[in-house]
């Protein structure tokens, strides 16, 4: 796993938050974006509290979705 993954996950999450805040996300995309944010939050929380291997799994899973 590349080391920037943590950053990427958090940054993407915060990006989504900013977009929603700035009303850059249309109602059409909103649910999808919230879903994505939800997944990212889960991943970020995993990064903090879980062992490396588990984290890897979480992030791998997310990448697949992307």
């Amino acid at each position, binding site marked *: 796993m590349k*080391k920037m993954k943590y*950053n990427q996950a958090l940054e993407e999450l915060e990006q989504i*938050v900013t977009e929603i805040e700035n*009303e850059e996300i249309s109602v059409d995309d909103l649910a999808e974006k919230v879903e994505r944010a939800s997944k990212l939050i889960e991943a970020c929380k995993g990064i903090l509290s879980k062992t490396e291997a588990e984290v890897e799994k979480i992030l791998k899973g997310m990448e697949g979705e992307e």
Partner: protein
Amino acid sequence: MADVKVYQLSDIGKSLQNMIEKHYQSGFWIKAEISKLNYYPKTGHCFPDLVERKNGKIKAQMRSIIWSTHYQKISKNFLQIAKTPLEDGMQILFRAKVSYHQTYGFSLQILRIDPKFTLGELAVEKEKCIYKLKQEDLFLRNKNLASPLLIKRLAIISYNTSKGYADFLNIINQYKNEFKIHYQLFPSLLQGDKAEQQLVEQLQLIEQRKTAFDAVCIIRGGGGEVGMNCYNSFDVAKTLAEMSLPVYTGIGHSTNETVCEMIAHKNCITPTDFAYDVIHKFKDFALRVEVAQQQIELTVSHAFIYTNKYLQGISINLQKQVHNLVRFQYQKIKQLNTQCQLASPRIVNSARENLFQIQNGIKRKPVFVLHTASQMLNHQKRILSLLSHQILNSNQQLLANQKQRVKYLSPEHVLKRGYSLILKKGKIITDLDNLKKGDVIENLTSKGKIKSSIKDIQK
């Protein structure tokens, strides 16, 4: 050979001893580099090898001696002032006595060492090191690496028994349930001249495994303030600067910042500080995730409220605009109605005005025409009168003329002027051929008749 004076070895030795002791009575201040300290802890004596180099080559080389009694004092004073023990490779300024011993030979006995000179030399070395790093564009390289948001996998350069390492682990372990940190120790001496090489080796080892870590830290603690020169070493500093991973320092000392600390990604001063830094990053990350989560809930609900309001606004605006449109059209129709009301009678009025003008024209003109005709008739009458009189007058004139002419032509009028007519038998004679001598003729005048006879006729 018989002539030759042969000396005993001792003679020479004595002579040399005398000469040197006489010549080098007092001590001298000498500048040299310790190439090897050669301290023997058992006896307490020290036999430093001294060199003077020029352009890397040895120009002079000499052995020296510091007796244990001196060494204790010198060493203590040096450490106190220079903040570093005497070490191989150090430039020193020392006061020495030159002596010669018949048995032990020539010796340079060091009596005092000026630690301030060495301090100055070290400072110069440090400056050189910084200058070179800057020259090679390394000074800010590690600092400029992206800071990891999170240090989850950490390479630690420290020593198993280091108090600093223990301090670090102590704090990290307090959070182990909450935050999972992976760390690996890369052991190394942390001070003294031997540390340099180990530090370089361990850094290089970590560099080889750079993908396994988020950051490197050098942790040292509990040691004294001495032996920090290794952190000013150009080799160590260069290796550190060239690391792909950010290098944190927590070396725990209170002297001037070393070069390694200066160029480190971040100097945390102590291991404890670094530990808190790591934890802080975790907390920060956790907080940002938390905030993001809360923000999402909040902004999403705001977005819905806003969007609902916006839709409602559009709906209200739609109604307003529709009413405006209809009202405007009513207004327009009303306006047209008013215009029609105002303009229609104008057409009739202006036609009436026009008619009035025409009527006025008709009233004036025929009277004028008749008047003119009447004038003309009067004129004709006057001309008629004038011409009639003219005709009559001209005929009067004509008659008067004729009368005059007749009067002048009448015979009476001719005779009155003295002429006379000749008559013969009552007839007027105009031809003499019909007369002869003797004929009786009558002369007629205005006054009367003369009867006479012809006497002669001359032709």
